[in-house]
């Protein structure tokens, strides 16, 4: 399963200024698995990404409600959304 991960704002900085990356996950991965994979791959991002209060995920441009973990399929796009500040 290959998914595309997008990094924004403070999450992008913590990952070393990477704005997007393709990640291969084992079959039947979910968004919680992905958090762990990202924490390992980007140690400076670990504290942020492992805490849902710090980073909300958006799956294919829809927010994942807090507390939920969703299955991931090939071609999905996940965005790392730190607390927003528009307006």
């Amino acid at each position, binding site marked *: 399963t290959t998914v595309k991960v997008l990094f924004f704002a403070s999450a992008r900085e913590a990952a070393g200024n990477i704005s997007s990356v393709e990640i291969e996950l084992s079959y039947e991965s979910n968004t919680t698995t992905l958090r762990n994979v990202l924490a390992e791959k980007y140690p400076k991002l670990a504290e942020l990404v492992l805490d849902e209060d710090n980073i909300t995920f958006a799956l294919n441009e829809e*927010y994942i409600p807090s507390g939920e973990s969703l299955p991931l399929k090939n071609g999905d796009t996940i965005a790392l959304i730190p607390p927003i500040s528009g307006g």
Partner: protein
Amino acid sequence: MSSFSADTHKSNTIWVKVSEELPSLQECHDFCADPSCGAISSFVGVTRDSFQSKKVLKLWYEAYTPMAEKELRKLCAEAMSKYDLKRVVAVHKVGNCPVGQASVVLVCSSPHRNDGLKGCSYLINELKARVPIWKREVYEGDSDAVWKENIEWKEGKSKRVMVKE
């Protein structure tokens, strides 16, 4: 029912845009104007020169553009179902936004003024809670830029539900 034209930002009643170039307030106004509407209400957010007595030197916005526009369209549709609005515009700047410059423009037209005024209020409050846009500020005397966080984001946690189609 609104239909979307080839320009995916615009239907015949809703216009959203997240971009470095913002349409002018007049263009937004003209989109919303309609003979049936006695009121065209607007909110313009402008970069302020200070935050908690610290002088703002630089301010810029970053966005998850396709999702930000999608969320803005949802907000506009919601505003239209809650209030008697004829047309709605919601546009937000990305990139550099110096002091005095408009960062967000929201315009609603309505037959009567109450709906339009409430519509604009609804839009800005919901935008701050839901639209994936980030603001970065540099203050005088600070070496590092700061990523801002809207209090509405945390407060709006329960509203971020997935719409199952």
